[in-house]
């Protein structure tokens, strides 16, 4: 829609104003955090002061390791689950869909308590004597998987749903069984949705902090470190580390947009 100032419609003005407000809500904090951060502090936490750099690089490594493992496992289980929910009709399907979306509605702290009770000393670990999620990399991975699973499954399922059923029909009439159709037709056609699911689930996992505070404060992941610095050193250092994290996110998302254009 082109805004013609000679005939300004109330409708168009309303749309533009409300859209600007929506953008402002995101842009104001984003710009502000960059404005209050000075390069000297960034230099200190990333390069020159070992007291900070050691913590930062360790937290980034742990976050990256846990998030990649969590999202990759989610990909392997999310694709079959998304496919099942997209292509099969069975009793209890709606209930399963509701259960999958539960982490989206669960308060993060509550999610942490749930994970701890299921997989911690009072849960699977206590019963079977193996595992151990408290203050461990496994705990971080589990938390990331729990909060990201709905995003992965819903995005992949939407991708499978968007494929016209005729392609699968034609492939079968040409001699392909269900597995071949999945491999040769459905999966390649849902490629973009699967990639989107991976990126969104990864981003969701990396951004989690509430459940991590309960399950795995240690080893410190990047959000826990930001939280701790905010409590110990105040806004200055927490904002500087946040800017580094945000810049990385922006860089990754911009690169993916360019690569998949």
């Amino acid at each position, binding site marked *: 829609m082109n805004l013609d100032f000679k005939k300004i419609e109330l409708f168009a003005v309303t749309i533009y104003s409300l859209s600007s407000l929506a953008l402002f809500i995101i842009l104001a904090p984003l710009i502000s955090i960059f404005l209050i951060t000075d390069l000297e502090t960034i230099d200190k936490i990333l390069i020159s002061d070992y007291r900070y750099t050691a913590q930062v690089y360790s937290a980034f490594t742990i976050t990256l390791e846990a998030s990649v493992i969590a999202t990759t496992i989610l990909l392997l289980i999310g694709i079959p689950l998304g496919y099942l929910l997209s292509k099969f009709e069975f009793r209890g399907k709606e209930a399963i869909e509701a259960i999958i979306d539960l982490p989206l509605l669960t308060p993060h702290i509550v999610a942490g308590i749930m994970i701890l009770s299921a997989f911690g000393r009072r849960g699977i670990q206590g019963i079977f004597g193996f595992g151990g999620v408290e203050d461990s990399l496994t705990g971080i991975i589990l938390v990331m998987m729990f909060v990201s699973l709905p995003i992965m499954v819903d995005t992949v399922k939407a991708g499978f749903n968007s494929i*016209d059923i*005729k392609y699968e029909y*034609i*492939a079968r*009439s*040409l*001699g392909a069984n269900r597995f*071949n159709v999945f491999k040769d037709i459905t999966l*390649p056609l849902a*490629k973009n949705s699967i990639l989107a699911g991976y990126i969104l689930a990864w981003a969701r996992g990396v951004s989690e902090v509430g459940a991590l505070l309960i399950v795995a404060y240690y080893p410190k992941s990047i959000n826990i470190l930001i939280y701790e610095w905010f409590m110990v050193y105040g806004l200055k250092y927490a904002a500087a580390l946040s800017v580094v994290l945000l810049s990385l996110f922006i860089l990754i998302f911009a690169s993916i947009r360019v690569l998949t254009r």
Partner: protein
Amino acid sequence: MIEIRDIEVVIKGFKLEIDYIDIRDGEYMIVMGPSGVGKTIFLHTIAGFIRPDEGRIYIDGVDVTRLPPEERNISIVPEDYGLFPHMNVYENISYGLKIRGYSSREIINKVTKISQYLEINDLLHKMPSHLSAGEKQRVAIARALIIDPKILLLDEPLKSLDPRLHIKAISYLKNLREKLRFTALHVTHNIIEAFYLGDRISYLSDGRLVGTYTLKEFIDSEYGEEYIKGIRELSKMI
């Protein structure tokens, strides 16, 4: 020969009943009837995409009613041709052979032969999005015929062509059919297509197959009369 006996399909409250129809080897059967009468459901039932609630489908005397689509050797060309968008023309045409385990040499030979036949040999490396409607139609037919199906199901394959291309495509299909003598079941609303291509016409009305006619019988039937009347009225208007 394809034999259909007492088929009943119920989908979301819609019921399709086909009491009896035989499609002989090499025959070009037209399926006509008003919109929403179940013509596509009929094709999908034969192809095995829909399992009938009642009745039997036989191919050369073998009961295929419970067989999955991949075991029936029936190919289909939908209205918009349904070329796999992520595969080029060569990959589209060769897909059925690849899945059947043909060697690369055999695949190349067969694709080359059929693409020369259908005059699409210069399109083999193009993606479907770069093809015209007429080219897509030829590629879809090549992909369907290369597996040497027992029957080719055509679901309004000429509908999306403009009038000039439409006439050309009818004549093209006619020539192709005369050369290759394949068995076909062709759904259409177009009486010209039906008369030019068909050996017989099956007519569906209110979810039932009301009859199978020779072209002459169809003109004399109440359903044929409606079409002829429509054409007369149209010519008066022009």
